[in-house]
């Protein structure tokens, strides 16, 4: 490990290091720093207030509501995004025709901008839109998809699910390739068929991937923003206001940078909890030095 070799390594790391320092590390510490200041009186003369922003947030019913909303959203999407794409991947992984066509069509929503997907769904959710027409056909009364506070979060979650299914299906498909064929043959010899065969062989074998999908989908659920921004703006009655939407509003609409940063730090802790669990439990090998 001579110093010339070290210097060479640093030179290779330098360009990425500069970008990450300016646009990641400095902003990261600045977020923590800002969270201890009060900007609400004068944006240009911040006042050091210690933990007051955090205390104000914890005491704020609206902030608590956004946390509960975010976890409600997570519970609505994550189980579905973990299980359903796996089911689809197992179906497509059979020896069937038109495999690639199915994969392409199911993956299509993944590549289309979430803004357009949200606009398309806003149109489907319209009071006299397509979805309510089908409900009427089924003799179910109309639903205020985006106007009823009881339903609005479910409507938002449906969009996230729609956009995510193809992505997680592809992850599962690549994992299914790694399941040795002999295991299925052995299970068949033992008399396991169909559903049982997958419960005995597939599921245990791709458990790490299931864990990974749970983590990725949970973290993206905690960060949900665009669907809400385009479709509901946090409404009706704050029923779809999530943590990121709250931070966005405080930072860029109310210019209350202290509160926004304290909210960001709280979100950071929640996300870090999920990530640390994933890295240290499921992905140890990948990130070994």
């Amino acid at each position, binding site marked *: 490990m001579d110093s010339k070799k070290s210097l060479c390594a640093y030179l290779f*790391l330098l*360009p990425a290091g500069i970008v990450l320092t300016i646009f990641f590390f400095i902003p990261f510490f600045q977020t923590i720093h800002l969270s201890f200041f009060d900007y609400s009186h004068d944006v240009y003369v911040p006042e050091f207030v210690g933990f007051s922003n955090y205390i104000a947030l914890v005491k704020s019913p609206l902030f608590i509501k956004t946390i509960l909303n975010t976890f409600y959203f997570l519970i609505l999407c994550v189980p579905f995004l973990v299980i359903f794409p796996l089911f689809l991947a197992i179906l497509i992984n059979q020896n069937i025709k*038109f495999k*690639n066509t199915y994969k392409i069509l199911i993956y299509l929503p993944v590549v*289309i901008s979430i803004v357009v997907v949200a606009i398309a769904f806003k149109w489907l959710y319209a009071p006299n839109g397509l979805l309510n027409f089908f409900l009427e056909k089924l003799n179910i009364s109309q639903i205020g998809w985006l106007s009823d506070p009881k339903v609005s979060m479910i409507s938002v979650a449906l969009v996230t699910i729609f956009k995510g299914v193809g992505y997680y299906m592809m992850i599962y498909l*690549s994992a299914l390739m790694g399941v040795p064929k002999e295991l299925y043959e052995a299970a068949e010899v033992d008399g396991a068929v169909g559903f049982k065969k997958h419960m005995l062989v597939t599921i245990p074998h791709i458990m790490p991937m299931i864990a990974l999908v749970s983590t990725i989908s949970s973290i993206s659920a905690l960060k949900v923003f665009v669907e809400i921004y385009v479709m509901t703006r946090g409404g009706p009655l704050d029923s779809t206001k999530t943590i990121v939407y709250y931070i966005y509003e405080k930072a860029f609409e109310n210019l209350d940078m202290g509160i926004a940063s304290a909210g*960001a730090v709280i979100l950071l802790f929640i996300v870090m909890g999920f990530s640390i669990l994933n890295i240290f439990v499921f992905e140890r090998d990948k990130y070994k030095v």
Partner: protein
Amino acid sequence: MKLKPKNILIHSILILICILSLIPFLWLLSTALKGQNENIFAYPPVFIPQDFTLDNFKEVLRLVPIVKYVINSFIVASITVVLNVILSALAAYPLARMDFKGKKVAFFAILATIMVPFQTIMLPVYIITLKLNMVDSYSTLMGYVGLIMPFAVNAFGIFLMRQAFLAIPKEMEESAVIDGCNSVQIFFKILLPMVKPTIALLAIFTFIGSWGEFLWPSIVLTNEKLFTLPVGINNLSSAFSANYRLVAAGSIVSIIPIVVFFLALQKYFIAGSNDGAVKG
């Protein structure tokens, strides 16, 4: 081909799911093709336009500079891809192949960034971008720079490239050292050509990600001349919320480039699921 009952069931489920993933877009397309004389809220809904017209497309292209948005998105996404490939590959090489002081520190610093979502640091990133004059109010060029730089490199790209470098046998390098190659030559002449498939993968997924990015551009952009597609289309949908035909036509136009891109490169998207080559 003989159709077993089991396969019929599988095909029916998959066809149903494919239809479901297309319906929102087909319904947009149908709405966009309906003329002024047709009620787009008709009960029951009509899928095939009765008053078929392309006027909505002509109108939206006349009113909104969608082509300009496409060009902006293309510029931003392409430069983001180039920077990500170069910076990730450069940083990944020492992390995979060299021993140096502070390797662990560098490694964990990069790893830690995975845990911090952009949403939690976006406010200081915005303040820094403003201070560095990387905004469209300063100049068009700096506007592009500000759109791109926060996404020029990320930990996923670095770790993806590192995995690819780790998979190359050490002997390749050792023989090059004997031949008198230095680190720079080894990197460009030997290692880089061997990880082309990973570079392609990183490039494609970075492109899709950058193309669809909404939050950051919507924060930094003030000048409509620099609007990227998602920002432009969102703007269109608020400005013309009363005219859904136009919003639908604009949305359809906006997804054409990325759908063409996806279909042209589909083998890369489904490759991983065919041979297990992708272990992201």
